[in-house]
């Protein structure tokens, strides 16, 4: 037995940056599991997740919440949803599949993504410099989610509040994304 133990670290070390009207924080209390939807099981899955959690399958670029608001489903592709939910254990996949109890295919992706929340009344001003999709409040509403490119980095953007957005990039691009946001904030604020 070794006399040391390995400690899990979040991709950005729990970064928190407060600026005037703009806050950057790493999201560390969420897990992410991909739920692939086999075509011939669509209706089975729809009824199972409704029964187990009060969830519906979201429309494209939209999300739905479970009855207790702990699980959010994102629809970024036709044949899959991403489950974004409050859970900090290291067995997110079995945790979610038990809760949904639907005949889908689950893949844990929690540790492969860096999740950064940008919030505050200047958040859209900072994001519009790097985000190519239209983030006007009436076009990209609360609950909308989309995958796009920011500063050449593939990014998922989710609006989780009036002035709050969660950006997801591959873990290895987390620092670059953080840098891109900081530079944009520096230019705008």
């Amino acid at each position, binding site marked *: 037995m070794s006399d040391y133990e390995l400690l899990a670290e979040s991709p950005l070390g729990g970064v928190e940056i407060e600026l005037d009207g703009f806050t950057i924080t790493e999201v560390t209390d969420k897990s992410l599991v991909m739920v692939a939807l086999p075509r011939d099981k669509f209706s089975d899955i729809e009824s199972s997740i409704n029964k187990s959690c009060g969830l519906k399958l979201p429309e*494209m*670029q939209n999300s739905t919440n479970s009855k207790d608001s702990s699980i959010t489903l994102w629809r*970024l*592709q*036709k044949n899959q949803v991403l489950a974004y939910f409050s859970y900090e254990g290291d067995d997110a996949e079995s945790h979610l599949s038990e809760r949904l109890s639907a005949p889908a295919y689950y893949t844990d992706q929690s540790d492969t993504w860096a999740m950064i929340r940008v919030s505050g009344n200047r958040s859209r001003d900072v994001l519009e410099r790097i985000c*190519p*999709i*239209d983030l006007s409040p009436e076009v990209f509403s609360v609950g909308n989610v*989309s*995958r*796009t*490119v920011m500063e050449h980095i*593939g990014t998922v953007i989710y609006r989780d509040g009036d002035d709050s957005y969660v950006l997801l990039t591959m873990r290895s691009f987390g620092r670059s994304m953080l840098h891109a946001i900081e530079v944009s904030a520096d230019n705008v604020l």
Partner: protein
Amino acid sequence: MIINHPLLGPRDSEEFVYLGSTDLINRPTNWEDEASAEDFYQYQYIRENVAGDHKELWYHEQGDQSWLVVTRNTLTHEITNVELAQDVSRAMGRGK
């Protein structure tokens, strides 16, 4: 260029990868025939060089990873129609 994705709305062409003419959907199915060599030659190499509306395949790599059939005017770059390649292919009686 902005491509108006049928499911996702307007997207910058930076998110896409260009493949080429939609002729590539029509892969010959007679690969066991002696004569198929000519068909595959046509399929692989012979292209119309259109000056006007051109139907072409674009892949939404940095998005939902769908294949699109985009009708683009090669003279003006105006995009007049965007469809899911899946739907186009099914309408031709191919695939699922």
